[in-house]
């Protein structure tokens, strides 16, 4: 059973507190939206879970294990930045993932790339931002991981590419998976979300079922987002 438990997580930088006593419990079979404006701590939270940043205090348990290099086998993280080796071709990236991750589904990735018309012999440094975003999404979701962390998957992407990316995310949904998507483009992603987490200045402002929230407040998640963060 896939599970991600975050308990009293704090991350401090030299002159800033990025996360303040964040406690969250993610369960399998749901798509979570990690929502908040720039600088609210979304990326930091994902990087801590992915093992790229170390927390100042608090605990993160992934499938009942403390964070370590071993928990990276359960987590597939898609950073918002272009982190792919620029000298590689698309096919080299796929081979890298195949060699590094036992759960990487090479054929599945090939099918997805074929369907979105990203060629294997394209060089990473020559890809457009839309192609890069699609490729990053495909390789992250081609792992048969328990937890997917997608950091701003729609950033800098045109409308058509956004639809493609959301299709890929929808295809990857499974009952034993946890998908966490961070974004500040709420309207585009809202229809995918089961649960929303609002992060404000590093603290959890709201953590609840998306549909219940909509019914309770009689407005869309985007409307609530504007209400919560509108004055910032």
């Amino acid at each position, binding site marked *: 059973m896939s599970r991600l438990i975050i308990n009293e997580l704090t991350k401090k930088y030299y002159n800033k507190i990025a996360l303040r006593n964040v406690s969250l419990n993610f369960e399998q079979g749901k798509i979570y939206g990690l929502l908040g404006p720039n600088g609210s701590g979304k990326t930091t939270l994902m990087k801590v879970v992915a093992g*790229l940043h*170390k927390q100042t205090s608090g605990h993160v348990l992934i499938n009942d294990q403390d964070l*370590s*290099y*071993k928990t990276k086998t359960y987590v597939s*993280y898609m*950073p918002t930045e272009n982190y792919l*080796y620029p000298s590689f071709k698309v096919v080299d990236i796929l081979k890298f993932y195949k060699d*590094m991750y036992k759960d990487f589904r090479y054929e599945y990735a090939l099918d997805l790339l074929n369907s979105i018309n990203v060629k294997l012999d394209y060089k990473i440094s020559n890809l457009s931002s839309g192609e890069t975003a699609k490729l990053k999404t495909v390789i992250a979701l081609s792992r048969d991981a328990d937890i997917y962390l997608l950091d701003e998957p729609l950033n800098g992407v045109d409308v058509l590419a956004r639809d493609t990316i959301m299709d890929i995310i929808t295809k990857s949904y499974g009952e034993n998976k946890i998908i966490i998507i961070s974004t500040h483009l709420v309207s585009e992603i809202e229809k995918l979300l089961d649960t929303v987490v609002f992060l404000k200045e590093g603290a959890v402002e709201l953590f609840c079922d998306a549909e219940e929230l909509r019914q309770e407040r009689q407005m869309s998640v985007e409307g609530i987002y504007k209400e919560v963060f509108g004055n910032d």
Partner: protein
Amino acid sequence: MISLIKYEFIRKYKLASMILITMLALNLFLLTKGAGGSMSFLVVSLLALFVFYLADIIKMYSDDLNKKTGYMLFMTPNSGYKIISSKLLTAVIEGFALLLVYFIFILINGTYIIISTGNEIDYSQIIKAVDNLLSGSLGFNLGHVLVFLLAALAFLIAFITTVYTAMTIRKSIFSEIKFGGLFSFIIFLLINWLLSFLSSKFYDIITPYYNTVDTISGTGRVSAGGLAMILLPMIAVLIIQAVALTGISGYLLEKKINL
């Protein structure tokens, strides 16, 4: 580990190919200048390869720590110890590969120099030179060479681990500090100062050992065994230093890293 090393080389093969092609072109050009050009090439290329090697092994680790492309490596389910060991092994293998390349250039240019000065290549002379080396009639033998190479390898590994540890400390414990390159260099100097201090204390302790070692052979020269006995404590210190620093780097990558 093998996969990590494989991708390190895949990432750098284009740059290495360009360096090799440039060297070949330069060599061909200088060969047209006669034996002097050939000698110049051997000196210049040795310096160039050494600078390239130093820059490349530092860049190999620095890029992964400081650029976003480092996520590719650090997201993989490999321990910090495995990652730093793979970097170290890659650097050592690369060092040997460059040494081999330079050796090939020596052979090519050496042959050219002999021919261009009107001499013929006398293979029996080469065999005789090797034979002399093996027999020790030149004052040193293959044993000396092997001991020296072992010491050089230990020194190289210790040097690389010191550089990598300085960079790891900067990126983990002092990840918030600006001017990372300069700060890494200061840490590198501090580590070296500390290691020199500890080594000197160690050598003070083992000085009586040196006095008991009989290093002179029957010919009145330092024997290979004697040389090994002299260098053994230094090699041991360098190996212990490399293992300890690799352990520290691995631990920091595992527990403290902030990319």
